[in-house]
């Protein structure tokens, strides 16, 4: 006999058997009504390899369970077998939208451990590169948020300017995406004339494009309806999770590592910290846009200060910074230092050090323990994306699926940084 009626089920038992811990299914009479949906691992709208196992009640999300580790490459373990200078290429591949920030943040950590004083000029050069990277990162995030709401045009307009930023990287370090920028004690080379001309051109050309981008989105009703009160999080919950960066500032907490704990000479610059109201997607969008303007302001100030800055583009410390190539070819002492540095035999002290920079997504920290050897004893990356992703299920419960995509997009979770 075939019965069409469903047998009554024990709700708690079924939830347990599905493996979910935080199921909120008050509306659903039977769990049979819920649909399990795998958002990811290779869903085009998640912009990366994430998996979210969502319990859906129709179009509403009842609960979500994120899976991490799809592109885990064990960077922290690999770093234990690499000399300090070979770890920079690893940091490139974490938040690949703003790799110069990662590179330079790592060098500043090592400099903190070794006690290297970086000259002012090198610091300002680093600031220019880091702020350019921040602009590129925020441009990606905001324009992709536009794509997710259905507006493709703005994305294409600002992408041309992002291309200009990548050309500046190319002129400074020789690569566009995986930059491997900076050296222990400074930068690998001074800005050449083309690089300076390109930066100046960018400062001049970028504001109209950005204004145009904002005029397409900022006060557009469709965009506002899609983003306001979507994916909100309170300041208290955000702080409990450990949010930093634009996502925390969108909730109204003006925490910025550049202001609270200045590094690389950020105390010499005038800029404001944009904050939002209630931490929803629209707030995050607005905060990122304003940060782009503030970054541009910092770059302008740094370009003015650069010619007057003291020192060269590297610290004059023969123990750590590679000697000039002409000396390596001709002088014995320089050759010995060259071999010593390349083989990683720098005299690192025993100790532990934490250094954090304001990355594209938030506080990007490096916790380094050295036992005096040529490699780190232990290295931990504090990756902001990993923290945001923990809060993602909580933020998208009760929303529709398309809003969950927006939430994810505006949190700017980058798979490379999430998994390291």
């Amino acid at each position, binding site marked *: 006999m075939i019965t069409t009626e469903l047998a009554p089920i024990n709700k708690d038992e079924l939830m347990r058997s599905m493996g979910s811990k935080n199921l909120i299914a008050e509306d659903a009479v039977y769990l049979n009504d819920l649909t399990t949906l795998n958002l990811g691992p290779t869903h085009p709208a998640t912009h990366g390899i994430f998996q979210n196992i969502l319990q859906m009640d129709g179009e509403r999300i009842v609960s979500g369970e994120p899976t991490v580790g799809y592109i885990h490459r064990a960077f922290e373990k690999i770093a234990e077998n690499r000399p300090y200078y070979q770890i920079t290429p690893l940091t490139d591949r974490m938040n690949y939208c703003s790799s110069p920030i990662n590179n330079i943040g790592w060098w500043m950590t090592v400099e903190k451990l070794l006690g290297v004083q970086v000259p002012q000029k090198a610091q300002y050069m680093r600031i220019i590169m880091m702020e350019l990277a921040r602009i590129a990162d925020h441009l990606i995030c905001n324009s992709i948020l536009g794509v997710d709401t259905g507006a493709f045009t703005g994305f294409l307009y600002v992408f041309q300017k992002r291309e200009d930023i990548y*050309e500046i990287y190319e002129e*400074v370090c020789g690569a566009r995406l995986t930059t491997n920028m900076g050296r222990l004690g400074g930068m690998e080379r001074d800005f050449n004339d083309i690089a300076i001309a390109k930066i100046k051109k960018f400062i001049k050309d970028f504001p109209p494009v950005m204004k145009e981008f904002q*005029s*397409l989105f900022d006060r557009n009703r469709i965009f506002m309806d899609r983003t306001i009160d979507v994916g909100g999080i309170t300041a208290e919950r955000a702080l409990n999770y450990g949010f930093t960066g634009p996502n925390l500032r969108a909730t*109204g907490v003006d925490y910025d590592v550049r202001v*609270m704990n200045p590094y690389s000479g950020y105390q010499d610059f005038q800029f404001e910290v*944009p904050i939002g109201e209630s931490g929803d997607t629209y707030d995050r969008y*607005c905060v990122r846009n304003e940060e782009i303007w503030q970054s541009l302001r910092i770059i302008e100030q740094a370009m003015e200060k650069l010619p007057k800055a003291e020192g060269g583009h590297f610290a004059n410390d023969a123990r750590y910074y590679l000697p000039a190539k002409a000396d390596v070819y001709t002088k014995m002492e320089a050759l010995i230092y060259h071999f010593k540095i*390349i083989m990683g035999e720098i005299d690192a002290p025993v100790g532990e050090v934490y250094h954090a920079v304001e990355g594209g997504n938030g506080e990007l920290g490096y916790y380094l323990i050295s036992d005096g050897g040529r490699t780190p004893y232990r290295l931990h990356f504090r990756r902001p994306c990993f923290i945001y992703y923990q809060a993602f299920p909580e933020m998208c419960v009760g929303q529709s699926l398309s809003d969950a995509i927006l939430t994810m997009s505006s949190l700017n979770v980058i798979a490379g940084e999430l998994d390291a």
Partner: protein
Amino acid sequence: MQLSNRSKKVSNKKMTFAEKIYLPAIAGGLSITLKHFFRKNTATIKYPEQQRPMSQVFRGLHILKRDEEGRERCTACGLCALACPAEAITMVAEERKKGEEHLYREEKYASTYEVNMLRCIFCGLCEEACPKEAIFLQNNVMAPAFFERDQVIYGKDKLVEPVKKV
């Protein structure tokens, strides 16, 4: 929460009447996109025929340089292999025999020198490590696409700079 005196509130979620009726926004948006429609588009590069100028310091495909007399500069010291974070470089050193002085600059040379282009991440650390001015990353040549795995391991036949014809 106020932590510094630099904060600035940026988001305004109240819509004015003009924004609510949406029609002006449609017109504004359309005018922007229409302006782009008539603007000369200079962003696209028709790639294989047209190539953009690369930076002088761009890190492209490797080359093993010869010196002024056409002898190989590499002495197989192994510093590039050591500096390689991707462990892409391997080499076998050999002693230069009598009568080979016109081929190799120093008494030792690399009999095989291989770069695995699948492993290589083009970070430029080998170029920086080389104390003999031998290995460089060219700024105008990229690693081409391949069809077989063994085409990707570049030996000396592909890496060493061809002899200049007089």
